[in-house]
């Protein structure tokens, strides 16, 4: 990947992120923030490669912490986002209880 290609990717991805969020209703702000928090958990693959290539004990120790933190980011982000979104139902999907 040359520098200029990387720069193009950076630019296009930045616009994509902006476009995705631009039309989001306020009701989804918290789940969406949580969802995007999950997405940057992709740092896990970088941390895995960093630890995989580590040679000295110091590199291994830092790499280990990195993978551990990244896995926490990804898994935790997924679990809480999923829990929040699971609760969003429309009144058509669920019958209201009670009644006389």
């Amino acid at each position, binding site marked *: 990947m040359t520098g200029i290609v990387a720069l193009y990717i950076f630019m296009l991805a930045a616009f994509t992120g902006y476009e995705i969020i631009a039309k989001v209703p306020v*009701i989804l702000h918290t789940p969406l923030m949580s969802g*995007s928090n*999950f*997405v940057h958990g992709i740092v*896990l693959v970088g941390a895995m490669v960093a630890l995989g290539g580590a040679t000295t004990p110091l590199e291994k120790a830092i*790499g280990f912490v990195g993978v551990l933190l990244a896995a*926490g980011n990804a898994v935790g982000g997924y679990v809480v986002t999923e829990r929040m979104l699971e*609760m969003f139902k429309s009144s058509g999907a669920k019958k209201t209880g009670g009644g006389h």
Partner: protein
Amino acid sequence: MEAVVNAPGIFSARLLIDVSYFLTAVLFIMGLKRMSSPVTARSGILWAGAGMAVATLVTFWHPDIPDTSNLWLIIAAIFIGSLIAWWSGKKVAMTNMPQMIALYNGMGGGAAAAIAAVELYRAAFAHAAGHSPQHNSMFMSLAVIGGIIGAISFSGSLIAWAKLQGVLNKTVRFGGQKFVNGLLFLGSLAVGVIVVLHHGADPLHVSLIFGLALLFGVAMTLPIGGADMPVVISLYNALTGLAVAFEGFVMQNAAMIIAGTVVGSAGTLLTQLMAKAMNRSLANVLFSDFGSGGGASTTEVKGSMKPIEASDVGVMMAFASKVIVVPGYGMAVAQAQHKVWEMCQLLIDRGVTVKFAIHPVAGRMPGHMNVLLAEAGVPYDLIADLDEINAEFETADVALIIGANDVVNPVARTDKSSPIYGMPILNADKAKNVIVIKRGQGAGFSGIENALFFLDNTRMLYGDGQKAAAELVNAIKAVG
């Protein structure tokens, strides 16, 4: 990057990884897109989750992991990190969601900083041992910048978590604080420049970059008040995304670049939307003192607070044609949302039109109240945001305020001297009758007197939110 040693056949590990990461990027973008509409939101996280699973799995065959001796370390670290996060994520109460997001976000920032640290220490030790530099200054700069941002996000998010969780109650401020903060940040950056120019310099310099950046994250977050913390968490979320993107350049990993950048820009926009909803600029949140308590307004509020009994409110709502409920964080703290929804169901069964009006900053962060209502079983199509609902208050017979205060204070429209002047509010005062459920007579979270409570069409129902809601349920049932 060293040359790939794999055989250059069509089915090389490199190709498998490139294709998988490409797929992951597509799934992430589609997932986030789906998450931006309530109808498809649920499937969005599943799509993104699938992308993450694919990327993680194929990385075990990554050609830059030269031998298998570290594989067990990787597996052990993933196992421990996942287990802790899975357990804590399942257990956390919905009211504590904002600080949990902060915590997971900080972990991501820490991971990005760790990647940078591995690369920079390696370069530093090689330089100290007299080896010729392996990386150009572009590589080194990106690693340094990503590392600094990641470290700031890490320590800053931890402080944000501690503040919202109540572990850390103090708001630390001292004279010249901004100067000290600036010094920490510039110091970290300056050492970073030295490391880049000297191809890693020595390990001490590398340690200094991270040490100063971590300190800066702490120092920058400490003076910010709890009310502003959601905006700060959102900012750190965007910063982590950016740090991941920078480390993606370092690792030559397109999935990290794309995902990190998308989150970086989406998070920046989300931060701006949140700040706007609170009528603050981002600079104002980061560098001013409002969050700790507002200045006193000079205008005197005229009139008196007029109490009412639950039974009377029950009758009033039972025979209304339209009731708008305005919930605030106080309702969630009292765990009253289930009782409130039970009450609303009784009203709906009687043919009353019921709507929930949500202010953008109701709850601890924008959209948090929607999550809390959804937890109680309120369908999202009964929930309206500020722009949709404000015109409807004039046709409402009853506006029921429960646990909300500043977001319905009409002085935001009229009183230029008020700290909340100009903040968009819910026009609850336009309803024919306003009922406010409130524990006592004190002022709100920000310490600003609420003129709504003193209006002629306002009645106060004193009591704990959950108890008051239960009384209303009984009162409506008694109407028959």
